[in-house]
């Protein structure tokens, strides 16, 4: 059944075995998602830098990896708590190498109208909700333009197994934050892991969630997919913390579907990975909705941190604000590609995109590409990119007050990134991220 190309694809090694294991989790009908994903991915295989969307993201490093099944690794509570974000007080779901860990999770005593649990549990209690949304939001179908590359979404579908599901019913607010932790640790064997998150907020519902990807050792490839549906007037803060190991690849895809007056805030923090790539796509299908996409990235050593955002303004009177910041040290590489599509009907769209990078060494590089495609005439769309060093006037001001040069630099670099972390309103998450940032910059 597998042709030669696919049989040699390092990401599909032992695929049939894996599916047999994966099929144990979740309902029978997940297999349709898997086979559709498999077929779609197989058409293309691993991207190369000749693929426009992966121009700055070389994947040749993994082509000679043998990537197997990740399951079977355990983790103590102490080891989890030793990670920067391991102690946050929240409704918590923990996945170790993709495998759900009931011992490390705590998600009982939830208020009426709120579900937080695994996809399999969700598919039992709320089959129709999961059916209507899983692998339905993560698609480019019916959207303008053709340059996005869905193959890692398809591969995640092909490997669909366990995942997290959050479902907040109409008019409900979950006050406690939710923390979904994906911990990865490769021992002798390298692996591919396909974390999955589905969030559905009904009309006027509200929640805050931190999605953490933590690497504790080894080489692996993680290809998470998150899907978020916000009904009218729903409000969702989606904080994301990526700290994979410095030899891991991380390729994530987040898809958001927003209805009228909903507010989606993404705070996307990336410190880890040998190469990490994040796509955040928001499709705004209602009026007076707000989309806020914020990003903070710190690349040191030879890290590549690549962020692609895409906002589809399909209807009028919506606002989007986007600010992505990168701090690049050593040979660090930053990439930012920001697409904004304003559809013909989307009059009075107000979209603002900003991208800023600080290069702390002459060998660090930043590649920025704003891509505004506007098909309506009465809109306000702006984008600005700055790439530079630390501000001289601020450096001098600090030093003139007695702060030594190295410390002044550290203060300014920290402040540059902290502006984004400040937008995280889960207080414990914010202080944890600040502490990790401080350590990363030291």
């Amino acid at each position: 059944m597998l042709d030669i190309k696919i049989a040699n694809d390092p990401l599909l090694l032992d695929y049939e075995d894996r599916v047999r294991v994966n099929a144990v989790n979740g309902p029978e009908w997940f297999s349709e998602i898997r086979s559709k994903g498999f077929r779609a991915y197989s058409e293309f295989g691993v991207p190369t830098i000749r693929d426009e969307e992966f121009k700055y993201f070389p994947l040749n490093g993994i082509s000679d990896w043998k990537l197997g099944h990740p399951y079977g690794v355990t983790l103590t509570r102490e080891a989890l708590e030793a990670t920067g974000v391991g102690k946050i007080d929240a409704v918590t779901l923990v996945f170790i190498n993709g495998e759900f860990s009931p011992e490390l999770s705590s998600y009982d005593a939830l208020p009426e109208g709120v579900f937080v649990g695994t996809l399999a549990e969700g598919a039992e209690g709320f089959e129709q909700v999961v059916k209507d949304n899983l692998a339905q939001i993560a698609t480019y179908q019916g959207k303008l333009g053709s340059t996005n590359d869905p193959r890692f979404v398809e591969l995640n579908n092909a490997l669909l197994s366990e995942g997290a599901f959050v479902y907040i019913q109409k008019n409900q607010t979950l006050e406690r934050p939710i923390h979904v932790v994906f911990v990865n640790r490769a021992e002798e064997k390298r692996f591919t892991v396909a974390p999955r998150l589905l969030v559905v907020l009904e009309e006027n519902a509200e929640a805050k969630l931190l999605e953490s990807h933590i690497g504790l050792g080894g080489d692996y490839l993680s290809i998470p997919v998150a899907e978020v549906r916000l009904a009218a007037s729903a409000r969702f803060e989606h904080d994301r913390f990526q700290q994979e190991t410095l030899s891991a690849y991380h390729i994530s895809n987040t898809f958001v579907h927003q209805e009228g007056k909903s507010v989606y805030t993404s705070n996307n923090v990336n410190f880890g990975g040998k190469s990490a790539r994040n796509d955040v796509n928001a499709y705004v299908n209602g009026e007076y909705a707000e989309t806020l996409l914020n990003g903070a990235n710190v690349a040191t050593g030879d890290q590549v941190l690549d962020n692609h955002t895409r906002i589809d303004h399909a209807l009028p009177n919506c606002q989007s604000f986007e600010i992505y910041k990168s701090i690049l040290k050593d040979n660090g590489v930053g990439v930012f590609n920001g697409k904004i599509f304003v559809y013909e009907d989307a009059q009075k769209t107000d979209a603002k995109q900003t991208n800023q990078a600080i290069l702390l060494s002459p060998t660090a590089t930043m590649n920025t590409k704003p891509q505004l495609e506007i098909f309506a005439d009465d809109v306000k769309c702006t984008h600005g990119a700055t790439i530079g060093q630390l501000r001289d006037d601020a450096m001098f001001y600090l030093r003139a007050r007695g702060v030594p040069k190295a410390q002044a630099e550290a203060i300014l670099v920290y402040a540059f990134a902290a502006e984004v972390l400040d937008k995280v309103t889960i207080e414990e998450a914010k202080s944890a991220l600040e502490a990790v940032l401080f350590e990363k910059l030291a």
Partner: protein
Amino acid sequence: MLEITNLHARVEEKEILKGINLTVRPGEVHAIMGPNGSGKSTLASILAGKNDYEVTEGSVEFNAKDLLELDPEERAGEGLFLAFQYPVEIPGVTNTYFLRSALNAIRKYRGDSELSPTEFMKHIKSKAAMMELDSTMLSRSVNEGFSGGEKKRNEIFQMAVLEPTLCVLDETDSGLDIDALKIVSNGVNTLRGPERGVLVITHYQRLLNYIVPDFVHVLMGGRIVKSGGRELALELEEKGYGFIEEEIAAKA
């Protein structure tokens, strides 16, 4: 404590300071006045260690050290403070964090131990009260979104916290309302003492009613062309700089 001798400086190809001589002894207050573009801020910036300027001739001694050899942070450690004509905004760094870093760095430079957080807060709270500074300003980012007058007041607040031995004030009075001018002057006067020197750059005699100088100097075309007592400021207020130009022309 400060001895400037025949100081020449230029930026790019343009000569701005053309031989400044000025001595400030402990306890003295000197005022520098002069037309726009005459080089007042340039002089202040060179004292603080801004490296946009090239010193081509002359020397500056501070506490018997060669000031021009020191880094800006070392100058602050030695006790020099410049209140900027245009204070800088630093988003993401709170006033409190900024001041704690500065104060502890200066203490470290002098071989003193760091202040504990409680001691530090007590210290800045009392100075904030003296400067009638709203306590919310302490937790805001340095100068970010401050009004022109608030920035100037914040400069003198920082000076009060850091307790320098030589205070250089570059047009701290411009942008201040009448009440703020009194508060700021009061802040400076509180710091006056036998061991401190003050150098005020201003365009207006009004400030000198509050901070009464021992000496007034007129800086024109990169040189100090006239010095005198505080009555010189009154004369300038009345006659403008024209009469000095005439005096110089007459001598030539």
